[in-house]
């Protein structure tokens, strides 16, 4: 039983990785959750989960004759975490053909798969998580560039047959009720939540912990838990999802 979500924004700095891990930790209270750093060209997840010195990462799994996926899967904070390494050389040495098998394997052993997606739509590998996901969580900020890029992510997702799980307004300062109400007209899916800007998010990253582990009582953590409640995963047939990953197009290395 699995539903795959891509957490995407099209623009950097919106707090995708923080959001991915926060939603993952909140959902892990009820589901078996696996979080994958699908931003293979610019790894980030490892720094948020205290895995900066991880011996084996997704890159090693993607090497010809590489490590098994289990070796790059770490049980952290109640979730299975699959980080990417930071070496571009390692990524270039990786065999992208193995990616679909790897992700299909993960899909067959978890309830909820969260793909932390690249902050761009500029390449095939960046768009792939959106194509593979059942539903896309669009992370927005109340700024014109973030809204504009979020709309593009949505149109890509819908064009490629993925649904929109909803929108998450992150790093919000003050009252943005007008903005979220007006944005709602253009975005599919519900407003999952409005996450207040939080110094705790930066502190959590510096400590190598997800926000919900570092500052579970912060207003931002509470807002993420509410958002996860709205997400309501539909844990579908694992074999169907695994098949889709296997048949998906494989990105070229950048």
């Amino acid at each position, binding site marked *: 039983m699995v539903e795959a979500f891509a957490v995407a924004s099209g623009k*950097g*700095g919106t707090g995708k990785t923080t959001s991915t891990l926060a939603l993952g930790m909140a959902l892990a209270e009820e589901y078996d959750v696996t979080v994958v750093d699908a931003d293979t060209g*610019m790894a*980030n997840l490892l*720094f948020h989960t205290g895995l*900066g010195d991880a011996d084996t990462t997704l890159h090693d799994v993607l090497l010809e004759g590489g490590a098994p996926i289990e070796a790059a899967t770490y049980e952290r904070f109640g979730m299975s975490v699959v980080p990417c390494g*930071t070496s571009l050389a390692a990524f270039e040495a990786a065999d992208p053909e193995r990616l679909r098998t790897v992700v299909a394997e993960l899909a067959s052993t978890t309830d909820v798969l969260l793909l932390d997606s690249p*902050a761009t*739509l500029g390449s*095939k590998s960046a*768009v792939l998580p959106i*194509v593979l996901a059942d539903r896309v969580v669009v992370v927005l*900020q*109340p*700024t*014109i560039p973030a*809204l*504009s890029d979020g*709309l*593009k992510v*949505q*149109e*890509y997702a*819908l*064009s*490629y*047959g993925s649904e929109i799980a909803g929108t998450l307004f992150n790093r919000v*300062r*003050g009252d*943005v009720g*007008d*903005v979220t109400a*007006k*944005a709602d*007209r*253009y975005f599919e899916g519900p407003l999952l939540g409005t996450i207040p800007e939080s110094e705790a998010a930066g502190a959590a*990253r*510096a400590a190598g912990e997800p926000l919900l582990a570092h500052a579970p009582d912060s207003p931002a953590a509470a807002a993420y838990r509410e958002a996860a409640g709205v997400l309501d995963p539909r844990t579908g047939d694992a074999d169907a999802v695994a098949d889709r990953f296997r*048949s998906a*197009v494989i990105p070229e290395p950048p």
Partner: protein
Amino acid sequence: MIPEGELLRSRVVSELSDSLEGALDRRLDGYAVLAPRDAILFDADGVGVITFEAGVPSMAYHTETDRGGPAALADIGAGPYRLELHELDADALDLPGRTDALDVPPGMPADRLAGDAALAERTRRIAADDADADDGEPDAIVEFLDDEAAIERIRSDARQQAAARADEWGFEDAI
């Protein structure tokens, strides 16, 4: 310290005004590496690094003295310099373990290294505008969201782009 960016230019310069202004005008995300002109190896005597976010100087560091911020600017000192300008995704500049000790005020490199008060002032003004924009300016955002025709253009452009790239990227099956 910083992931390697794409080298935009490498040259010897006697003063930094043009380079700093160029970075500002193109709203560069990236960094400059500055070494004394006579240095044979780029890091023989240490180099200074200044990072830019949307063209505005944000951090400075000197590899030899291991000092950051305004102190690093002092360590970089007077030209002529060998200058390398690199472009790098802004996210990559959001370094783990980044501390305030590396921060430089936006106009300070233009003031201290280029002696260009006008450029320093212009840099400060642009940095202040950027900060306002980051704060969201709700009125401007609401105005943007009220322009249904403009929003529809963004959406339909994205749909066309997605369709065109489906061919290019082999995603036809997904459509």
